[in-house]
């Protein structure tokens, strides 16, 4: 009766003689008919072509253009420039070092403040606590918003005279009122607080999913051995969460490098809000297009990003191979 392994399709019985057991490994393409190979070829070929033309080749072109001088008009005007774009960016381009410093601050702030808040919320909400779903919904809501909306909403908090913050501080309407997004001494931090509002909820959701996936017997075993809550978390839960911990680390770094929308919205990434990603764009769309310099900055950003990307890929695919 039930000898047939999982072949529940109606007409499978006729062929069941051939199906002794489901093969453990995916099928080899070599054994397919000509037509099936063609179909499979199209299924792979079209997405790969799109990916190649619009992602991989542009990435390589960025590297290529970074060694040239070009105003973006006639393709025949592209001139080799050696390393001059890089030396210009590093030695003479005024916003380069501030931007790099801001990127590092951005990353460190996400890693030391925003991500830990998300982790803390996840750990607290993973307990059997009343109203946990409601809390989760509240913290998660900003994750649904674009960084542009986050910027606009926080502009309403930070505005000099109209904003909530200065009204709470009692400085609104006085000369002492701080323009939180405008003052170059504070605007990076103001933008980071707004970013945290969204980032923490994102991390919370990811970590909660990881915590829910932990085998409850691990906790029970730890409790039986007399471990308290703190010990259970740091000695048992945290090590078991290793895969998700890697994801969180990588996401935090990548988000730090990708930051763009909110600073571009506030003031196009100038006056205290320079970031590498924004400098790339300023060099591409500004009045005097300097594709070479923009590309050199893009390559610097690419090289920094490759670290976490490669780390993640190695971690993820080593097991699969």
């Amino acid at each position: 009766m039930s000898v047939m392994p999982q072949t529940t399709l109606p007409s499978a019985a006729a062929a069941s003689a051939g199906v002794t057991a489901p093969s453990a490994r995916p099928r080899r393409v070599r054994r397919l008919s000509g037509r099936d190979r063609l179909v499979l070829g199209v299924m792979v070929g079209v997405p790969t072509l799109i990916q190649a033309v619009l992602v991989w080749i542009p990435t390589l072109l960025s590297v290529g253009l970074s060694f040239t001088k070009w105003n973006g008009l006639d393709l025949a005007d592209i001139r080799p420039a050696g390393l001059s774009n890089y030396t210009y960016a590093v030695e003479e381009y005024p916003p380069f070092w501030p931007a790099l410093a801001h990127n590092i601050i951005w990353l460190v702030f996400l890693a030391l403040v925003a991500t830990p808040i998300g982790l803390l919320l996840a750990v607290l909400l993973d307990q059997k606590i009343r109203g946990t779903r409601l809390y989760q919904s509240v913290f998660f809501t900003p994750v649904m918003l674009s960084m542009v909306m986050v910027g606009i909403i926080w502009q309403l908090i930070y505005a000099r005279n109209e904003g909530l913050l200065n009204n709470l501080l009692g400085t609104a309407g006085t000369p002492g009122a701080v323009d939180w997004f405008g003052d170059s001494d504070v605007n990076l931090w103001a933008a980071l607080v707004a970013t945290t509002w969204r980032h923490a909820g994102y991390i919370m959701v990811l970590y909660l999913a990881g915590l829910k996936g932990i085998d409850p017997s691990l906790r029970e075993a730890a409790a039986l051995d007399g471990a308290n809550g703190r010990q259970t978390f740091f000695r048992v839960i945290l090590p078991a969460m290793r895969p998700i911990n890697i994801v969180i680390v990588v996401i935090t770094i990548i988000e730090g490098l990708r930051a763009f929308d909110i600073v571009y919205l506030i003031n196009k990434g100038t006056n205290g809000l320079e970031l590498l990603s924004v400098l790339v764009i300023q060099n591409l769309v500004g009045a005097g297009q300097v594709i070479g310099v923009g590309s050199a900055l893009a390559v610097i950003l690419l090289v920094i990003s490759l670290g976490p990307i490669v780390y993640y890929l190695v971690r993820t695919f080593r097991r699969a191979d």
Partner: protein
Amino acid sequence: MTATAPIAPAAGRPRRHYGTHLFLVVMAVMWLVPLLWTLYAALRPKAVTDKYGYWSLHGPLNLDNFTAAWSQGGMATYFGNTLLITVPSVVLTLGFASMMAFAVSRFTWRFNLTLLILFTAGNMLPPQVLAAPLFEMFKHTPLPYSISSSGTLLDTYYAVIAVEVAFQMGFCTFVLSNYMKALPSGLTEAARVDGASVWQQYSRIIMPLTRPALAALGTLEVVWLYNDYFWPLLFIHSGDRLPITTGITNLQGQFLLDYNMIAAGATITVIPTLAVYLALQRHFVAGLTLGASKG
């Protein structure tokens, strides 16, 4: 099973987490205040806030700013544009990604893992790295003026859709291939023995079983594309062609210091995402965590 007896009461008695609750309530209030402040400003007439300031409790509350922002800001156009970009992008992304995922997860061939790794990596790059070459490629691609008013791929939805699809495809392929890999190989094996072609295995067996993952990714992608700011900013230059998230920043310039109108525009823009959130929260969260938990 005697060992479970002593800990059972401890687990059964609800522990009182006063400190935790206090902390969570404070955090929740801090998280809600920006949203509520925006809504409050949006509901108040400018005349009132000009007279009493924003930090005041004077009424009335009405929807006048919403109707004004909607019509003066031309938000209907922006929403229409968003629809024109988002729907084809999500459909194409999921279509291509599911085919690619099917091919790499259900068959072994020489470069399948290499391609999957490259797809996954592509999605993680900062978009600004690709911006210059893509912009120049599109600028130097001539199109007939009947299709594109710029005579090139710039300022067209094709450009935005193509790049959105290419960029999101990597992530979706990664998630879907993990999902498809977990489906028992006996399923397609049996169908193959029945004479089902590769296409039939994909469309009749694997795709129906992948529906939960597709629903989760679909929800996630709709929200992500709705929220995307960068690609339309780069490629679209006509103000009346911008999608809502990029267009809303024009509103900011238009309503300069009219914070009530800006707040109303922002609230209107947030409504669709919040609707998705309320209706499909489970799918959205599933989509987010699918990508992470299998990693």
